[in-house]
């Protein structure tokens, strides 16, 4: 059979190492799974992206840190110590023979399937501060946890607006949270536990905000919070965050049309969480070799409650409120399906909107992402994809999914992601396009004696 030398077959190297079990995420669920597998006699790799490089934390990767890290977060050695201190099971894992790699993220999951048959096996892309590489697995355990549902309100792009998962990680895993006085949004178990955790770490809790008329958390938890003297504002919504060069200085709340000003340096979104399943989302459905454990296996918080918060914020947020921080897309731009500001907005565009797009059929979140650029930025849409989906759902009356994730699911520098040790066939079979020489024959020469081609002439 003829071989197309420019075909991908045989050009992707087999993974550098292979383990019976690879576990992504060294939280309690992932560590326990790794220990169990190792004790069963299997070779096990356990990776965790923490400590995350400080630059990444600054762009809210992977959690919504809101810039509230102390300088300690910039000291990786200290951070490794803090992580070990926070999770004593890691020692056990070491003793059980688990290979533990901290500061190592998993950025891509690749498997053969209907539209890809040429991989030499399923593989997972990893990267640390120095290099990227691929590992193979017999079983892949995803224990990647959950992340904050982030809903933007006016001023949410100031430093000091952060998520509850990020606050928890900075407090307990990193011991590197700079917050002194915090306001917490949401009144579910997550919100109240966050309030109590902050209190236990001597952070002042200026209040808890709930849009509904009743507190959502179980009564005994509410009792703890009340006993701790923490105010719960029901029937109240966040109107905006105000502040200066160091970020948030106060939160302005709105209750029955009356503004309440609360002096805080941090506003913590504890409205909900969603499973951190982006590795799978970018790769396709799970298969028999993949297992999800811990929070990433859950379904996340009550969607109706999140939608209610989104509507309540939307009712008080001005149209120019930013939705996508990276690409500076406002609510009005999103709902108008308008292009980014660096492009002209000709008159015809003013007549176009989500509503007119909806006439053509159900709106697709990825189509709107590409047109508005909301979710296309350096944070890879982690900060805004859920709120974009909420806003699109509200406006269209349909249930619009969040835009899709794409590998690499963590931002990885070109030089680090690069494969500097490609198999020889890769360079030998590399063409700019398909390597079909007749494709580039100038039309006039087709069928003449001059038709003989001079190799790739793609321009």
């Amino acid at each position, binding site marked *: 059979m003829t071989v197309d030398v420019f075909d991908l077959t045989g050009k992707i190297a087999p993974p550098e190492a292979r383990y019976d079990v690879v576990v992504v995420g060294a939280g309690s669920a992932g560590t326990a799974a790794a220990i169990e597998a190792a004790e069963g006699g299997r070779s096990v790799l356990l990776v965790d992206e923490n400590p995350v490089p400080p630059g990444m934390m600054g762009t809210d990767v992977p959690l919504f840190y809101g810039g509230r890290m102390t300088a300690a977060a910039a000291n990786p050695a200290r951070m490794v110590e803090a992580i070990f201190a926070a999770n004593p099971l890691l020692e056990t894992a070491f003793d059980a023979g688990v290979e533990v790699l901290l500061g190592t993220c998993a950025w891509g999951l*690749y498997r053969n399937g209907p539209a890809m*048959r040429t991989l030499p096996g399923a593989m997972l*892309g990893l990267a640390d501060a120095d290099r990227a590489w691929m590992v193979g697995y017999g079983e892949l355990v995803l224990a990647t946890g959950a992340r904050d549902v982030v809903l933007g309100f006016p001023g949410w792009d100031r430093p000091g607006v952060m998520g509850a998962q990020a606050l928890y990680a900075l407090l307990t895993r990193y011991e590197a949270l700079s917050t002194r006085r915090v306001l917490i949004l949401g009144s579910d178990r997550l919100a109240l536990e966050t309030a109590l955790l902050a209190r236990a770490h001597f952070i002042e809790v200026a209040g808890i905000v709930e849009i509904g008329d009743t507190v959502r958390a179980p009564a005994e938890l509410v009792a703890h919070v009340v006993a701790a003297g923490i105010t719960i504002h029901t029937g109240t919504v966040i109107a905006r965050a105000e502040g200066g060069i160091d970020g948030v200085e106060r939160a302005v709340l709105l209750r029955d049309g009356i503004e309440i000003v609360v002096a805080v340096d941090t506003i913590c979104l504890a409205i909900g969480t969603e499973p951190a399943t982006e590795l799978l989302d970018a790769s396709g459905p799970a298969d028999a070799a993949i297992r999800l454990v811990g929070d990433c296996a859950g379904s996340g918080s009550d969607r109706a409650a999140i939608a209610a918060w989104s509507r309540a914020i939307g009712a008080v947020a001005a149209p120019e409120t930013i939705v996508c921080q990276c690409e500076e897309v406002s609510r009005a731009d999103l709902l108008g399906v308008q292009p980014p500001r660096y492009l002209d907005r000709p008159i015809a565009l003013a007549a176009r909107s989500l509503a007119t797009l909806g006439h053509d059929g*159900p709106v697709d979140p990825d189509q709107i992402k590409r047109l508005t650029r909301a979710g296309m*930025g350096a944070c890879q849409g982690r900060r805004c994809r859920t709120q974009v989906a909420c806003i699109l759902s509200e406006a269209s009356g349909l249930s619009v999914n969040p835009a899709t994730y794409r*590998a690499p699911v963590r931002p990885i520098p070109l030089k680090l992601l690069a494969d500097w040790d490609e198999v020889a066939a890769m360079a030998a*079979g590399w063409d700019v396009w*398909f390597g079909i020489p007749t*494709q580039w024959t100038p039309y006039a020469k087709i069928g003449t004696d001059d038709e003989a081609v001079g190799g790739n002439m793609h321009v």
Partner: protein
Amino acid sequence: MSDVPAALPASAPLPASATVVVVGAGVTGLSAAWWLARSGVDVVVIDKGIVGWEASGRNGGGASHYQSPLFAEEQRLWPQMDELLGYPTEYQRERIIIQRDAALLDHYRAVGRMCSAMGYRVDDLDSAQAQAMVPLTDATCLGGIHLRFGGHANPQRTVQAYAWALQDLGGRIVQHCAATGFATAGGRVTGVETARGTIACDAVVVAAGPQAAALLAPIGIDFPVTAARAEMIVTEPAPLMPIGGVDGNGLYGRQTLRGNLAFGGGPHEWIATTGDGPEARPASPLIRSLARRVAEMFPRAAHLNVIRSWAGIVENTPDGRPILDRVGNVTVATMSGVGFGLSPASGHAIRDLVVDGECSFADIAKLGLARFADLEPDWREQRGWAAQAADTGLAA
């Protein structure tokens, strides 16, 4: 998954008839429909998904296909497209190709001379000139060529611009509605069949990308086209270079107006598609080899983060050249892998074929189906272009 509509549309009734039905809302079908609507033709475009969801919304955005008989018309049109359509396409003029390999540089210099001889001016750049024009490269760049023609645009934005412009002229677009076959009478197509009913028509345009082969076979049209997956990566924004259309080092792509570097190139994988389209569009670890070449081409951008990758399904004919032809009242069109850049002109040519029976502005006779009269049934295998069977893949 985004490909599944979030909810079923409150579907408008399927149009009962149209003068022309276009199957496929990629750039080729949409441009054709727009040109037809500009001539006052009542046109309906149907697509199995949403506009531009296949190759047309996922490509490199390059527009510099000097080899095509449609190129002069394309060059005339692109600078006017934003105005003609009424919506932004992000079109930018000109391209640069730089190289860090002496043999490749020589090769491209020769291609440049050939283009100049065809009337499309190309200037040589020495290393210093190339570095001045492409600030993200460095002294490892041996030089390049500057194409005083061609350019690039934003794929999804351009697709949407065609679609909106078409609607502004009264054309109709029906999404999530696949053509399943054709109604015929007396050797002519009288309607396009869909799961929602049949749209009666006087003429049909099939611009269904790689899926056109399966659609056309039942009405006796052998349309040799096959599918492959091609991949691209994109970085976070870099400072804007004076010309965003910079290729080289085995890559094609562009710097977007936002600053992102979006590049593709290298090996493809031949895949099977059904009439319903590709089953998935996965990217592969090839993105690491792409990252390497982008880092080599732009050493001053090598620290930038890669933030996405994607794949698209490319249509290819046996000789890699377009098919533009009319059989009875069926006009068939594929641009064989270079359809985005040529779309302003391909639509014009298709409009001419539908309305006048021949192209008014260029000789396209050599792009007809007749050239495949003797094509062997196993042309894919002969070229090594057959999709691998599931069980030959080296186990997952």
